[in-house]
């Protein structure tokens, strides 16, 4: 009658998992010098440009602007993936008139093409590279028709009157564009604002150019470059946002193209796009030097570092899910916490990682709170369950949209991150809690809702821990160990912490 068989195969399996997990991790540690702990670290941004275009079967020449060592960043290594293409890097001209470019060529390709270029930039605050100012184009005719030129010169004249040097002139000129909406709109019909700004500054004899800037944020995918105005004064320069007039450069912004050239030149194809993925890596000091040399891949070097950056960025998050799951399993099997929806807390924790804890908790409470109110109205309408759940889902989405817009209007850009919440899961949570409320009263709602929130916060704390992130990202074999742990927990027959309290009158006292 007893169903279970011998436990020996189970324990062997768990032991094998543990041995394989630790063994592979040790191998990576020894053979590739991956440290166990995140020691003293240098920050490296790995940036990947993904070029996609449609080839027409003709010879193709494609040239992409690529960055070089610059203020605050040192270029370490670069890497391309473009099978079937010839590749050459052209260096920057000595006089600074042209920048570095990667040039691909192929005799005959057809259909959709994807090329990758990837570069590692080391953050180095002491790095300074002087940029030579662009030669000012010989006073050329301003673009556009008569009225546009008149309007543009008028804006320039106003700005000149209120400025003292090149930087103040730029600032005032951008302000003119912002305040004189009508002129700005008229000018906008001929070319973009930033092109007007460059032309007008040149007209006034100020060296300036358009540069392309990339915002560096860990785990971002499908990013594009932002055009920014670079204005020189003597040996120094300043960056200006053409839309807001904001001056200066943040430390996590890198200049991708800064030689007044196009980002991408393509002959023999069309419909080209360039997207960027970014991930941040913390690399021990001694490894920074070696980084370039070792990038061969073998089967045993089973790491996600061999994937394209876009997928790496994705995996950075995915690999943390098992950690969150492990936290939930432990809290349920060892502690006996009750949550509403088994793994809902993990998903909430994932959302917290995107939103930051405080915003996340506030957002969660807001959505669930207001959702419960809406749901209590729905319950009076006497609807079928499926329709009611759907109504809750729609309300949650509307709520999220409303909160996002409200937060943005109030200037709380943090509030926008509320969209990271898993909406369907939240809707089910609201539905369950509201039934719980009707059946067993608000206290149970607080107990289970609070339980879920506590578990989510705990999972968040563990998942954002530096050591945990370092280990999961660098040692893929850790997943085998998680597996073994979950299996062992699954056969744990001892008491739960909550049971020790519940049965305390029945259990033997500690003292004797």
């Amino acid at each position, binding site marked *: 009658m007893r169903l279970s068989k011998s436990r020996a195969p189970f324990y062997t399996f768990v032991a094998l998992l543990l041995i394989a997990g630790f063994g592979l991790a040790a191998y990576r540690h020894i053979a590739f010098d991956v440290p166990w702990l995140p020691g003293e670290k240098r920050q490296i941004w790995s940036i990947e440009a993904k070029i996609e275009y449609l080839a027409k079967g003709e010879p193709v020449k494609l040239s992409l602007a690529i960055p070089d060592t610059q203020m605050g960043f040192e270029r370490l290594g670069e890497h391309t993936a473009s099978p079937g293409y010839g590749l050459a890097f052209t260096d920057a001209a000595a006089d600074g008139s042209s920048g570095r470019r990667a040039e691909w060529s192929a005799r005959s390709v057809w259909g959709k093409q994807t090329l990758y270029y990837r570069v590692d930039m080391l953050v180095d605050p002491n790095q300074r590279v002087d940029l030579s100012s662009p030669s000012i184009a010989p006073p050329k005719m301003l673009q556009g028709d008569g009225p546009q030129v008149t309007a543009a010169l008028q804006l320039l004249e106003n700005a000149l009157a209120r400025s003292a040097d090149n930087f103040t002139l730029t600032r005032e000129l951008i302000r003119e564009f912002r305040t004189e909406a009508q002129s700005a709109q008229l000018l906008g019909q001929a070319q973009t604002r930033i092109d007007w700004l460059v032309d007008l500054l040149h007209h006034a004899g100020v060296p300036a150019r358009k540069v392309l800037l990339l915002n560096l944020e860990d785990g971002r995918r499908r990013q594009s470059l932002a055009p920014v105005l670079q204005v020189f004064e003597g040996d120094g320069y300043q960056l200006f946002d053409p839309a807001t007039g904001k001056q200066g450069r943040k430390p996590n912004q890198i200049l991708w193209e800064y030689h007044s050239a196009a980002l991408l030149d393509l002959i023999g194809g069309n419909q080209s796009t360039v997207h960027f993925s970014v991930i941040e890596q913390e690399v021990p000091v001694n490894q920074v030097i070696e980084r370039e040399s070792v990038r061969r891949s073998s089967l045993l070097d089973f790491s996600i570092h061999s994937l394209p950056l876009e997928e790496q960025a994705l995996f950075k998050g995915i690999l943390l899910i098992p950690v969150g799951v492990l936290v939930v399993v432990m809290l349920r099997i060892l502690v006996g916490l009750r949550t509403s929806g088994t793994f809902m807390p993990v998903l909430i924790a994932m959302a917290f990682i995107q939103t930051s804890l405080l915003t996340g908790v506030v957002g969660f409470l807001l959505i669930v709170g207001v959702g419960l109110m809406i749901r209590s109205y729905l319950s009076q309408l006497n609807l079928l369950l499926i329709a009611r759940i759907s109504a809750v889902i729609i309300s949650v989405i509307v709520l999220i949209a409303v909160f996002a817009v409200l937060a943005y209007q109030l200037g709380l850009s943090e509030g926008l991150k509320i969209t990271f919440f898993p909406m369907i899961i939240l809707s089910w949570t609201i539905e369950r809690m509201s039934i719980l409320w009707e059946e067993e009263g608000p206290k149970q709602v607080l107990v289970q809702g609070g339980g879920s929130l506590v578990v989510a916060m705990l999972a968040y704390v563990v998942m954002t821990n530096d050591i945990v992130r370092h280990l999961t990202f660098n040692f893929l074999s850790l997943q085998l160990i998680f597996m073994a742990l979950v299996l062992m927990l699954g056969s744990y027959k001892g008491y739960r912490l909550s049971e020790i309290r519940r049965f305390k009158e029945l*259990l033997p006292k500690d003292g004797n």
Partner: protein
Amino acid sequence: MGILGMNRRNISYISAYNPRYLMPLVDDKLKTKQLALEHDVPVPEMIGVVDSQPAIKNVELLLRGQKSFCIKPAKGSGGKGILVIIRVEEGRYYRSNGQPIELPDIQRHLSNILAGLFSLGGAMDVAIVEGLIVVDPFLAEYSYEGVPDIRLIVFRGVPVMSMMRLSCAVSQGKANLHQGAVGVGIDVGSGRAVNAVQRDHRVSHHPDTGCDLMRLAVPRWQELLELGCACSDMTGLGYLGVDLVLDANQGPVLLELNARPGLSIQIANHAGLLPRLREIEKLKNPARMSVRQRIDFARRHFSAEPLAPVAPSEIIPVST
């Protein structure tokens, strides 16, 4: 004291002795009822099943002439979704707490049941309409507004531990412990109370009726034990919670079966299940023992006051 914890219960007893394919028999009250009828196990009278929207529309036909009844979701648990109507007057239906409701309220409740509001994971469900259980007058004074039921843990066909669950005001007429009902540990041998708890704390008197719980002795105990063993035999489940009630007219009837019985019964009895379960695990083949032999085994090993085997008729309720 050998308390059985949740983890050990799940691993060593439920998944070890309850084959998955048998679980639907007890997770679906309708299937349990059909099984019981096939095996001549007494159950509350079946009035009908409501399994579709048209059936909800026509439910008045089904209820016509019924003076009292109980509606429950076939896949419900923990007392969820149970609607007890104790009398019908002038088209109004009175719940066990005296609250009157109308037909549309009942229809809404039925449609909630069908949509899966009370079933695990929101699965589609059907509603069972059955006759009201009238509490045996002897037990009536121990219960407030609801039907007290008797929970028996039967392991490999042997009764192991039992308790009586008495509904009270806070549990809203439901005899489910986590809703606040009083649990009275009952000696498996004699049917007498050994201990009582409410919300995991010891009590000596019923909070609403004020009855002295320690003087409770369940009438027709031997019959109840035999019914419990019969239930275990008919399902084939090794670790089973059997919920029985003592109906004033029908006598002992089966209310529902549970393949994952809770652990509070240990608190109600102030005793752990583990030593008793281990004792039964030592038995070579309890399936070959007769029901009487199994009950005798339970009497000998699990009772504080072992009595000589007695014929059912000899068990006389000790009056209070």
